[in-house]
């Protein structure tokens, strides 16, 4: 237990809408060891962002709600904590970086103030003590002329610089867990590489665990130790990074790997997965991926498969990997 930072058990997060309610995250389990990076991949709308917001206790109210599950952070169930107790963890022991650096910073406050706020809240420092620490933090994330940047407003910085500010904010209290929700998606490729490099350095330096959410398998290959492939609110495949790229099992993972732009040769048209993510109000009766799956069989359309361990560190949710007998029993 000691070395495990986060354990998520059977997490179900639902949303109420005018057209009925649905589960955006539907029974997700995973754990992150200390100093490791867990990547979650999937298309937009598969529930990966909602998973991260659930851990932070920031599921949009009043429509979103966590209906069951456990989120154990260093052995403590976050779902049982009161709002003030969660506030002491947020930004302090669990920090988060968001996708859109352009809009994630408050436009009317100076950068220095926005970082100092965290130090004031969690380390009870006085405003005057914060400035040198802010400059130090900005230096650490590799921002040029940090003494100037503390007194600037967000609109005066570029997207990459703002994301560095976000990272500096996230690191200000040396969190045990860093949740990065598509931190590089909105950035240019060169800036993207720099930001990833920075996160890697910080991880090895401070033994921070990272939950890394992306739709970009290239970034996963670069960053993650373990990978979770999500589809329609469920984990489809779970394994370590190397195995995922060498021996992918789930047809969805395969399809994702095949549709990576770098695998497409000159002149070929890109391979895309036919169809779209099913509407949450219109989930297939069987496997959620069945309507788009090239290998789907009758059973796939009838019944949902469970996540099955193929080897100690490789789990997959697909009827293909059940024996005939098991399939029959289930029907």
């Amino acid at each position: 237990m000691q070395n495990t930072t986060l354990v998520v058990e059977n997490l179900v997060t639902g949303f109420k809408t005018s057209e009925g309610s649905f589960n955006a995250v539907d029974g997700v389990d995973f754990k992150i060891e200390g100093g490791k990076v867990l990547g979650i991949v999937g298309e937009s709308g598969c529930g990966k962002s909602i998973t991260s917001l659930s851990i932070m206790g920031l599921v949009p109210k009043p429509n979103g709600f966590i209906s069951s599950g456990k989120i154990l952070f260093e052995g403590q169930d976050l779902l049982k904590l009161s709002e003030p107790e969660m506030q002491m963890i947020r930004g302090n022991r669990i920090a988060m970086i968001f996708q859109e650096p352009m809009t994630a910073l408050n436009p009317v406050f100076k950068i220095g103030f926005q970082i100092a706020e965290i130090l004031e809240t969690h380390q009870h420092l006085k405003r005057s003590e914060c400035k040198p620490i802010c400059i130090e933090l900005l230096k650490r994330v590799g921002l040029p002329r940090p003494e100037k940047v503390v007194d600037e407003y967000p609109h005066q910085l570029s997207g990459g610089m703002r994301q560095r500010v976000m990272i500096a904010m996230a690191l200000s209290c040396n969190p045990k867990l860093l949740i990065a929700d598509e931190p590089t998606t909105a950035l240019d490729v060169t800036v993207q590489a720099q930001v990833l490099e920075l996160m890697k350095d910080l991880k090895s330096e401070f033994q921070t665990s990272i939950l890394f959410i992306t739709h970009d398998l290239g970034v996963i290959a670069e960053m993650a130790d373990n990978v979770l492939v999500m589809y329609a609110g469920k984990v489809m495949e779970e394994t370590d990074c190397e195995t995922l790229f060498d021996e992918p099992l789930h047809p969805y993972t395969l399809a994702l790997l095949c549709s990576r732009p770098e695998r497409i040769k000159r002149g070929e048209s890109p391979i895309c997965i036919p169809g779209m993510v099913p509407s949450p109000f219109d989930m297939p009766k069987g496997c959620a991926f069945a309507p788009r799956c090239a290998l789907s069989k009758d059973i796939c359309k009838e019944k949902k498969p469970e996540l099955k361990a193929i080897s100690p560190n490789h789990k997959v949710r697909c009827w293909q990997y059940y024996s005939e007998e098991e399939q029959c029993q289930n029907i």
Partner: protein
Amino acid sequence: MYKYIIRRLLLMIPVLIGVSIIIFSLIHMAPGDPYSAMIDPNTPTEEIENMLRNIGYYDSLPVKYTKWISRALTGDLGFSIRYQEPVVNIIGRRIGNTLLLSVLSLTLSVVIAVPLGVISATKQYSKFDYIATIFAFIGMSLPAFFFALLMIKFLAFDLKLFPISGMQTIGSGYTGIRLVLDVMHHMMLPVIVLSLLQMASFMRYSRSSVLEVFKQDYIRTARAKGLSERLVIYRHALRNALIPVITLLSSSLGFILSGAILTETVFSWPGMGTLIYQSILNRDYPLVIASTMLLSICVLFANLLADILYAVADPRIKYN
């Protein structure tokens, strides 16, 4: 910043000229000459024509306009036909009363309505929000003068809580603190009418502004930092949400000044509104032109002030 203000002031000049031309020509399109009432009906026609020629009545419109504007620039706004007095003096006596009424009701409505709107937004879909929304809709839909009439009928006539009209008790000869109290008593109803109706739109506006800000990413960031909900709302959301409220403040100044015409008339409040209404009925055109121009300039300056405040409050606005 100074450059920005100067540039904005320069931009106001063509607008002001446009406004004055329109008002001036509008009023000179009016049929009949307003002076006939001033003149002894037994005066020979020739003499009347002579007099009218002397005061420039037969000049062409552009000539009249040029004469008027060049005099206006030196502070001479003309001579009231009805009151036989320089227009500046009459306006000077009245404008204070209007400002008293409008500044008080504007302040009152902002102080009450903006916090209510913010609370309404933070408790969206609650009972409080629901009642506030209904109230706001009623306030936005109730014609001011009808509301004023209802107040006079029920609170002044039937319950005798307030005086029916005017600014002070006639013939009372109150001085000092008694006078202040008397004026305040007379002011109550007009202030209630003007401020209640404006509260509605302020409340509605600040509510939707806060709700809009709540959807922004930086609010989520603020929560992710571990800030308390109080800080998230009153530091991060409010500061951003109040910026657009500033613009509403300025436009409501125009509303309050022109809306006050009806309200002032209904309450016989001796302000600019009643003055303009009466001078229109009396065909006292120099007075009408001057007061209309003055109010338009007020609106223009209010807009400028709003833009400057906006630029001060939002660091993203650049001044060029």
